[in-house]
């Protein structure tokens, strides 16, 4: 049996985290291949439906990066998503998936090192928790 490689979906805010990762990648700093990055115009765009659907379709973890508190381009988009994530973590705990599979961090646009560290830590954590029980077995053979 092959080693379990978690499939992680990362939503990055265009104005902070995505820009930071972009600059870091221009300097040939790489991040883990199993983290799939999606650029969003603001972290407030991510609704609870998106997150639930990601888990339903077999993502092992979802990580969200927003701007720092008070630094959102659209006033309070990051805080709104923080609220959603807090409630969804409780929901996932009740359902039996585990709220640890969902995480949100607030970062600035020059903190590429911090973002990569968070991503690595999250990857290791998901590896410990194990695969998403909803994923069909053929996918990670």
């Amino acid at each position, binding site marked *: 049996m092959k080693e379990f490689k978690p499939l992680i979906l990362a939503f990055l805010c265009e104005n902070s985290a995505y820009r930071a990762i972009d600059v870091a990648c221009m300097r040939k700093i790489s991040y883990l291949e199993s983290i799939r990055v999606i650029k969003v115009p603001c972290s407030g765009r991510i609704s609870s439906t998106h997150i*639930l659907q990601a*888990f339903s379709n077999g993502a092992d973890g979802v990580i969200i990066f927003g701007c720092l508190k008070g630094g959102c381009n659209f006033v309070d988009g990051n805080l709104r998503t923080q609220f959603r994530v807090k409630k969804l973590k409780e929901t996932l705990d*009740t359902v039996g998936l585990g709220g640890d599979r969902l995480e949100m961090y607030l970062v600035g646009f020059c903190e590429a090192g911090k973002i990569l560290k968070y991503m690595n830590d999250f990857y290791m954590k998901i590896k410990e928790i194990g695969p998403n029980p909803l994923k069909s077995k053929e996918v990670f053979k």
Partner: protein
Amino acid sequence: MKKLAIVSLMSDGGCHVAFLDMHENILKLLQNVELVHSYMVLDVKRIPDSVDVILVEGGVRTSHDIEVLKEARRKAKILVALGSCACFGGIPGLSNLFDLYSSLKYVYEKTPTIIKGVIPRENVPEVVRVSPISRYVKVDFQIPGCPPESKEIMEVILSLAKGEKLTQPTKTVCDECPLGPPRKKPSRLRRIFEPPKPNTCLLEQGYFCMGPVTRAGCGAKCPRAGIPCDGCRGPASKVLDQGAAMLNTLATIAYNTIKDFNLRTYSVYFYKYSFASSLIEDLIRKIQGEKK
């Protein structure tokens, strides 16, 4: 003459009463269609073969319901889900929050009025998780509502009998509501027993009004009377999951005033009628299926 039948599954008969609530209009209806099976009006035990339109009332709770439902689908040309239980699982769907054995144990053994109760096990159909009928058979049209509007039922039956195509309303309850959209953020949460201010949006005052995510068609009866909408007509056309959409709405307007919630407390507000067809229910089903 087209044939019409009403089949009842897990339900309290309220939708059936809503159908009979047409008063003298029922005479107009009976000029166009013939009622062949209905447990409240006729004494016909079995569903006759080849019926044109079958209205199914109630969701699926036991293996008996599944059998009756599949028989109805075989015999019907057009199958219509009548009421919120048939369309989305309804209020009984909230029992899916607890596992099957603990809810049976509570009902038959632990209810305060019961002395030495036993869970019945012989000669009873198997109990399954509550689900809308669309999980088992193909549904041609839905008439949501708890109970559905009598006028709407009549219009749907008449146009189905004529062979016309039907469409669902695409707007939300807020579009029909005269109190208007919320203009400012609520300062705190309110419960229903606190009297609301007149001519002000209920969401703006801090009540859980499900108007923004609920399908239109009822004429916003409840908000007009000062009672928050509880979402009986199910998710609006582009809404995938009613409760998750309402959580988004609340996160947008009141992320700093709402503090303590979890699935079991807010499900009653957010998923009152649609828990059995929500994304969370899908997650639970998939996880439990995996364990077996």
